[in-house]
């Protein structure tokens, strides 16, 4: 075969077509396979949480939950007001919009674990311009950290202050020798928040805070009348944060 320009171009054309076909084929194959799902993944129609504040009602006990959560999700420990937190302790007046001038002593002293409420009608999802934050069919409000443009509209929209922005490089505030390799770290410039441990549910595990709570936190399917959360809600008086705003929070507090 003589080395003409014509032959060279033919060869290159064929090679390019072959490469395209190859990658398209593998892409199609991947699409057919879909994501890998563990057989023991926990599933629900509507995940919800019940927090027994009589059992976990001090800063110390809530810090245990925060520690477990923040380690499981590589949440940086930033000492400024540009901090990141997924679950934290707050007083009654900070947590609920039902102030009482003469509340009882127990309520005055009690601390409440606050986290994303995974609302049924989440305002953060409504305002996100890129669908980087979205609601899963099981009710969990999740984040795609790679799509988020960092406009922080969701932070303005969330009436519960559940969202944090990575104002700076979060990895500078992480113990890099003690990372949870099962969950990604984030880059600066994106918003994050509690994800109800979707990563752990997919592997059949309860959320990290629930596991660390010694039974003070319950997690389950709100749509299943026989679930543990429904049983607790039947047996106890519970309240939710700011119900008048109509977001329908998925986190209930036993008082």
């Amino acid at each position, binding site marked *: 075969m003589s080395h003409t320009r014509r032959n060279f171009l033919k060869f290159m054309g064929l090679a390019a077509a072959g490469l395209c076909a190859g990658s398209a084929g593998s892409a199609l194959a991947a699409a057919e396979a879909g994501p890998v799902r563990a057989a023991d993944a926990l599933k629900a129609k509507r995940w919800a949480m019940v927090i027994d504040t009589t059992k976990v009602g001090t800063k110390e006990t809530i810090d245990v939950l925060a520690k477990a959560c923040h380690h499981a999700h590589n949440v940086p420990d930033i000492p400024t007001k540009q901090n990141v937190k997924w679950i934290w302790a707050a007083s009654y007046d900070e947590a609920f919009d039902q102030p009482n001038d003469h509340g009882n002593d127990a309520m005055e002293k009690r601390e409440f674990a606050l986290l994303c409420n995974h609302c049924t009608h989440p305002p953060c999802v409504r*305002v996100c*311009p890129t669908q980087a934050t979205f609601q899963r069919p099981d009710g969990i409000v999740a984040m795609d950290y790679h799509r*988020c443009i960092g*406009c922080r509209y969701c*932070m303005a929209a969330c009436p519960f202050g559940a969202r944090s922005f990575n104002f700076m*490089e979060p990895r500078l505030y992480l113990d890099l020798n003690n990372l949870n390799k099962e969950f990604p770290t984030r880059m600066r*410039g994106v*918003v994050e928040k509690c994800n109800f441990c979707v990563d752990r549910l997919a592997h059949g595990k309860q959320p990290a805070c629930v596991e660390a709570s010694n039974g003070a936190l319950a997690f389950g399917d709100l749509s299943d009348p026989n679930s543990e959360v429904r049983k607790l809600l039947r047996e106890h008086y519970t309240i939710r944060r700011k119900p008048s705003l*109509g977001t329908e929070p998925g986190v209930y507090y036993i008082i």
Partner: protein
Amino acid sequence: MLEKALKGSPKYYLWIGFLLLVIAGASSVYITQLIHGLTITGMSRDVSWGFYIAQFTYLVGLAASGVMIVLPYYFHHYKKFKDLVIFGEFMAIGAVVMCLGFIVVDIGQPQRMLNVLLFPTPNSILFWDMVVLNGYLILNLLVGWTCLECDRQHMPHPKWTKVVAYVSIIWAFSIHTVTAFLYQGLPGRHYWLTAILAARFLASAFCSGPAILLLVIMLTEKLTTFKAEAEGVATLAKIIVYAMCVNVFFFLLEVFSAFYSNIPEHMNSLIYLFKGLDGHTELVPYMWTAVAFGLGSLALLIPPKLRDNRKLLPWSLGILVIATWIDKGLGLLIGGFNPSPFDTVAPYWPTGKELIVSLMIYATGALVVTILFKVATEVKQELGVSQKPAVSLETEA
């Protein structure tokens, strides 16, 4: 036509050079922000929008304000505005450029900005704001540039420009309404959660925007051979004072609803801004300055004798601009985020770096406006319309 911006007096070049220098110097701070993130700003977990978004909001008002000239000219055939129309349109272009700039510097991952287009999300007001702002930019460029070029060629304006101008008038209202919707649909932010916010935005835009425009036009008159028709200027001043009255009235409606109902959520932001809350009084002096300047501007603009005094007018307009800027460029954002969702006060103040990055955007806007106004005045000079009497020709820039 753009070549007209390339030839000018030494003063003109000095000003352009100064602006370029400011932009270049300030962009070094923006590069710092790109490297280290928005941590260089005063924003926090509780006050997650700050000076940048506040300037964006204020400047959308400036962009919309051109309509106060364009509407009477096109809808009511008010010919006295003929020589001002092009400046209204060109000012809008400069303002929208600044708006887009402030959005870009505010987002945490600007290189992902096009995700807004790649994943269009109609339920997000930010998506619509992007649509209406870019649309408004294109409309004004199209009409302004085409009409000026036709004037220069002694040709009648093409018919379609009239249609586009009509669309741009309606569009101007939409840009500020949609910007207000960014805020007023958020549950739990009570200072913003009010049906009158969009109307307040428009009222404040239609006084502050034309006021800035008129100040720049008066400056243009000083620096070039251009001379606006006195009656047109007087009418614009009248429009400004009406809009300012409506603006103050709308604000007082808010005050009434909040304090007569005595609902804490509705009162707290206002108390924080004007009296201080939980010992935080950072904004109180600014807000009362706004009140004093706002009422002062009304006192100087309502009596026709004072309003028509061209020596006094720049000062009256100046304090009006300061009053509306404090209200919308400072109070609206910080007051909206306070008290926080935890009913606590989280003070915010922009950092020096934040202000320098903002300066970069403002200088860019000034550059765009300078170049466009230069082109417009040169064309008018070439045509010999709206010119000063020949005596003052030596002051040409």
